[in-house]
């Protein structure tokens, strides 16, 4: 190959070579560029050849550093730089350089190859931006997730703590507790409930209420409660002589959603004992008081009737006052005895088939004189047809109706009118006593059947009342499996309604209740 061929080969090769290449002399001056270099930089040979290589780069010092590195290493590859082009502005490039040597191994310059990486750089920058953004998003998400997890963990700890506190309260509660879920399955029972009923919680938890009757220790409890525990109720349960429990069923609600039920076993043994002792005491005291009061009654009566000699007007007036007071005392003692008997469960004893209409009539008649004296009219509205006879303890039922009549008369001040009605329905008889008296204040209506309670308005009119009448009446009616209710408006009047069941042919069953 001659020099011309060599020259042509080099020229063709240089022209073809897609990689932009610059040839430098040892001082960094460009002495040759190929076609690709011209196209890349936008400069022709005239401009570029003879220029210092730093002319092409934004960072002028980097070109010098590159050549020094080449001198040390011989070759340097892929250094990033910014090329200053003509017309295309700044361009990201990758620069590789190698030392050029002659046959004696003298360094006679450098080859510099410049590779356009602007697109790559843009892509890379785009990717980096995307990665950065995505990383940021992921970091944000991670942070948010961690925060959520922390919150959840904190909430879990809080809930756990609350649960432990609640469990501690339940476990240390002096009352026995059964907690049922919404399907009436036992969720938990506390140790006190286990102690009361002599059961192990392992045997009970997870079982439905309906299955509890299969546990011998719980059978009486289930019998008392009936089949359902979804209604609020309060009942007494005597497990043994020295243990009486008050059983309360209450729903566990969250807003309007029912979560389950709570069965509370409250030990009322002591209260029951005190109540019994009190009743015994009242009974004993009343009995002891009644004998001397009867003696006083008959003695005063004898004196007033002149059996012990003539008395003057003044003496009569004093003795009449004494007689009335003694009568009130006897009535009070009788009421107390009635209350004692009621509380001892011995009150109703003599049930006979009774014509209720006759009984009511008798009571009304007994108040004829008194009503005339007070100017109060009594009207008896009989049933449209004859009522069947019903099982009654006549004496006690008379007391009950008498108490209603007495109150109606006593608390109807002027232009009084009392309407006593008797009516029959298919399964019950209703007696109502309506007056146009002072009425019961609305705020006190709930307490009207409580022992010794007296309305504030009646206390002003009559100071002699004991507050036992309606208590006794209610117990008498309840003992007959009847119901008593009332409607009242202050200063307008009150109506009491008594309903009694009509029992046909099931006397023995009926009697079981007494």
């Amino acid at each position, binding site marked *: 190959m*001659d*020099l*011309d061929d*060599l*020259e*042509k080969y*080099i*020229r063709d090769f240089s022209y073809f070579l897609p990689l932009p290449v610059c*040839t430098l*002399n*040892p*001082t*960094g*001056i460009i*002495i*040759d560029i190929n076609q690709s270099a011209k196209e890349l930089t936008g400069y*022709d*040979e*005239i401009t570029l*050849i*003879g220029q*210092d290589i730093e002319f092409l780069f934004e960072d002028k010092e980097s070109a010098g550093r590159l050549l020094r590195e080449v001198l040390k290493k011989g070759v340097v590859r892929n250094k990033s730089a910014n090329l200053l082009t003509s017309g295309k502005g700044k361009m990201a490039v990758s620069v590789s350089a190698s030392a050029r040597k*002659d046959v004696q191994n*003298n*360094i*006679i*310059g450098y080859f510099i190859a410049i590779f356009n990486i602007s697109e790559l750089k843009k892509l890379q920058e785009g990717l980096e931006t995307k990665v950065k953004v995505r990383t940021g998003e992921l970091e944000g998400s991670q942070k948010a997730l961690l925060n959520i997890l922390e919150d959840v963990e904190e909430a879990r700890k809080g809930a756990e703590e609350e649960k432990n506190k609640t469990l501690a309260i339940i476990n240390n509660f002096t009352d026995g507790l059964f907690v049922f879920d919404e399907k009436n399955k036992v969720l938990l029972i506390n140790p006190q409930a286990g102690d009361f009923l002599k059961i192990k919680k392992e045997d009970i938890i997870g079982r439905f209420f309906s299955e509890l009757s299969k546990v011998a220790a719980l059978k009486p409890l289930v019998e008392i409660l009936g089949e359902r525990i979804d209604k609020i109720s309060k009942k007494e349960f005597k497990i043994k002589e020295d243990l009486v429990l008050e059983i309360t069923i209450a729903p566990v609600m969250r807003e309007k959603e029912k979560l389950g039920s709570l069965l509370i076993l409250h030990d009322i043994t002591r209260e029951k004992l005190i109540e019994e002792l009190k009743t015994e005491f009242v009974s004993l005291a009343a009995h002891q008081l009644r004998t001397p009061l009867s003696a006083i009654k008959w003695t005063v009566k004898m004196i007033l009737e002149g059996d012990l000699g003539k008395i003057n007007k003044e003496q009569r007036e004093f003795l009449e006052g004494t007689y009335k007071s003694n009568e009130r005392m006897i009535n009070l003692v009788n009421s107390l005895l009635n209350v004692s008997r009621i509380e001892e469960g011995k009150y109703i004893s003599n049930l006979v088939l009774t014509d209720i209409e006759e009984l009511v009539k008798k009571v009304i008649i007994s108040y004829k004189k008194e009503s005339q004296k007070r100017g109060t009219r009594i009207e008896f509205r009989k049933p449209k047809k004859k009522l069947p006879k019903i099982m009654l303890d006549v004496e006690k039922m008379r007391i009950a109706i008498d108490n209603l009549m007495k109150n109606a008369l006593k608390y109807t001040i002027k232009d009084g009118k009392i309407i006593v009605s008797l009516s029959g329905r298919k399964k019950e008889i209703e007696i109502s006593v309506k007056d146009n008296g002072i009425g019961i204040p609305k705020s006190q209506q709930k307490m009207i059947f409580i022992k010794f309670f007296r309305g504030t308005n009646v206390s002003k009119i009559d100071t002699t009342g004991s507050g036992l009448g309606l208590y006794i009446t209610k117990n008498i009616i309840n003992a007959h499996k009847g119901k008593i209710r009332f409607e009242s408006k202050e200063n307008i009047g009150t109506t009491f309604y008594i309903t009694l069941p009509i029992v046909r042919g099931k006397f023995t069953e009926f009697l079981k209740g007494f």
Partner: protein
Amino acid sequence: MLENKEIKEILKIKGMVRGVVFQSDAQYVLKKEGEAGLKKLEAAIAKTGQLIRYKEVKAVSWYPLSWRVLSLLFIQDTFSWDKQEMFKMGLTAPKFSFLVRTLLKYFISVKKTFKESEKYWEEHYSTGTLETFKFDLKNKYLILRLKNFKIHPLLCSYLRGYFQTITAFVIKASKMTSEETKCMFRGDPYHEFVIKW
């Protein structure tokens, strides 16, 4: 318009030159006047019975030195370029030269590079000798002497530019000037070019 007599005189010049110089000429004309300019130049030469086909010239082949003179004269004549333009042509010529890139050796030592310049001249011209008479890095100047090369005065401007660029290829300088201080056509025994930076 060159006269035949003048052309005949020029054709008597002895010596050879590498084809690369014609390639450089053609490149410069192409840059300045485009393809049409080059055709115009070739046509002008052809009219005189001479034939320089620039694109067929081979860079390292030897051609008559007289063609070198004729090429420059026809370029000057065809495009009415003055001496300054010829100087500029000389300035750009090394930039198009394959031989400059391949044959001129550059060394870390600038001095050594200029010592090699004599050999470089021999690679281009079969007549004349180039000598680095003085190289003063401290005072920043270079004296080159071209001896036995009394060809045509037009070459003086061209070569001044040419040597200045060659020097610029070796010396880093923001500004460089050149001057022909001695000329054989002015009665001096050699041409002397002083290049300062």
